[in-house]
């Protein structure tokens, strides 16, 4: 299990507020746009893990570097961003995607596929306790790695919707597609994932 460390209460309270809904995220966003560094910190803590997991599917092990570039741009342009909390996540995802595509162009290649250790996948499928699974860093890595094995359009659609937390329309804007196409890609992705999980569940232990 991941070791959790207590955080600054003001940031913690802000993050609890984010959890309580998009309205709170909007309020924190506005604070950050007025220059409050602690509000910006709360935005980072809310959004960075989501972006990092999305980027892992796009650029593999270079995700952290691309995330750093993404945050440099966010910190630079935040004051000029117009929109609410949900819009912010979509904006951040768009920046992350552009930086990732730049990165891929620079390196002229797709990253090697992330390998999912069979036992992680089996553990993911065998768990009965959903909450415990979600608090497990290994499970998170395995889940993101499994999603990253999907065709890119499906992986992106699933991650933008389920991890970044965007609705179909916002995800479509990020990807430059129609919402219907994003729904279809996500649906196909989930169908494939379900099949993988089922196979993992039924695979005999090594």
């Amino acid at each position, binding site marked *: 299990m*991941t070791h*959790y*460390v207590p*955080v*600054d*209460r003001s*940031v*913690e*309270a*802000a*993050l*609890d507020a*984010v*959890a309580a809904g*998009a309205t709170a995220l909007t309020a924190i966003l506005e604070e950050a746009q007025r*220059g*409050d*560094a602690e509000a910006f*910190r709360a935005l*980072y*803590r*809310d959004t*960075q*893990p989501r972006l*990092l997991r999305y980027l892992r599917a796009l650029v593999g092990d270079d995700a*952290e570097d691309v995330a*750093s570039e993404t*945050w*440099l741009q*966010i*910190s630079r342009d*935040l*004051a000029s961003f117009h929109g609410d909390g949900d819009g912010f996540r979509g904006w951040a995802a768009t920046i992350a995607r552009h930086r990732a595509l730049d990165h891929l162009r620079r390196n002229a290649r797709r990253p090697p596929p992330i390998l999912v250790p069979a036992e992680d996948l089996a553990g*993911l*499928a065998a768990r009965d306790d*959903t*909450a415990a*699974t*979600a*608090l*497990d860093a290994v*499970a*998170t890595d395995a*889940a*993101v790695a499994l*999603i990253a094995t999907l065709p890119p359009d499906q992986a992106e659609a699933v991650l933008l*919707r*389920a*991890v970044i*937390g965007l609705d*179909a329309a916002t995800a479509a804007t990020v990807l430059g597609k129609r919402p219907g196409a994003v*729904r279809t890609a996500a*649906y196909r992705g*989930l*169908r494939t*994932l*379900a099949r993988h*999980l*089922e196979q993992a*569940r039924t695979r005999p232990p090594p």
Partner: protein
Amino acid sequence: MSTRHSRGITRKAAEQLLGGTADPGRDPDLARLLAAAAAPGHEAELGGEAMAVTAFETHHLASVAIPRRGPMIKSPLAKLLTAKVLAASVAVCVTGGAAFAASTAFTGSSSSGGSQGGSAQPTSAQPAPSTANPALAAGPIRLCRRLASLAAGATSGQVLGQAGLEQALSSPALTSDLSGYTFASLITNAHGSDNVPDYCALLLGLPSLPQPGDLAGLPASLLAQLLSQLPAGTLGQVLASLPAATLSQVLTTLPAPALSQVLTTLPAAALSQVLTTLPAPALSQVLTTLPAGGLTQVLTTMPATGLTQVLTTLPAGGLTSVLTTLPATGLSQVLTTMPATGLTQVLTTMPATGLTQVLTTLPAGGLTNVLTTLPPHGLARVLTALPATGLSQVLTTLPATGLSQVLTTLPAAGLSQVLTTLPASALSQVLTTLPATGLSQVLTTLPAPALSQVLTTLPNSTVSSLLGELPGSVVSQLVGELPASVVSGLPTSVLSHLPVG
């Protein structure tokens, strides 16, 4: 092959899973997978937080128009800040709060009902930095106040005044209060928990630092921001409280624009105290780091005694660099502020090239003032140190009265050396500029060999006209000292004016 999901997932179920409205019992494997993928942030995922927040603060500072801080915040500084933060080994250990608002809707952070972290706003009655820049200060200021309250054992709602804050930040209890992760961002910002008390004191605008000797432990970029936002009086008190070594370290690590701003913000007396506290190498580095504008303002703000002490402390190289950086008016003001002894020491410390540049930069009025302030031997040392061209330029710049005063002040040996160094054209110009009384005094002061050399250097027409201005008795005295070979070469017009015998 299991038949558990043989029907597959429907489009509707997929949409519900992705939108967080799925029935928990349906498609549990997929629900677990998505929950794991969207789980709250783990510590390892937040390693770039300090860099991101620093970049944010830097960009925000750059976008807020505060002219006095403007020049410091440029892209290279942002890069530097980023690099420094990246390099810092102090890790920010935070996690747990990243909320997950997707399908399975649970979070890893506990909602602590009593946390009122944002409520401790600084009140206007409290000392605070003069430019309350929220990006720089709002969060850390709150944290510093909270830390001080904890260390002081203050009850909830009790607001500490300046003395209370100072006492709390100096309290030994502070170390244990800092150990929690609540104050991790302060430790990160200050590059270590040892630096937090001073960091907080500066943020809160306190004139008395808890650990003045350790101030240089704060990163230069942060120090630059903190010192730049202090009001003049507080800044003066803070810098005056530093031991010389710390003061040297602090001032020599500040980037030029911040250094300039800090020094030009100080009132004259505090500025004088700060600069005269610095040992020579640090003083030299500080003054030669300043851009011309800042340097001029600093030196022309200082009172004469402080200025003299500062300039006479500088080693020759630093002194030359400082004086040759000043523009003509600033240089003139600085040199004419100094008393004779200090001025002599300053001018005679510089090497010939620097001295020439300094004297030839001065406007005529300032040059006259400077040279006529020097005592005779100091003046002789200064003028005889100059090479012929520099000397020519200096003497031909002086107006007649100033020139007369300068040359008649020189002792005989110095005067000889000066006049015999000048090339013929400059010598002609100098001597023909002198009024008759000055000329008499100059020529009668010269020992015979020098007088011979001067008169034989000049063209006959000039000798004629010069001596023609003088009373016959003086000409007679002069000619009487000359060897026959020189006398025979004098123009006949001169000789015909001599009294018979």
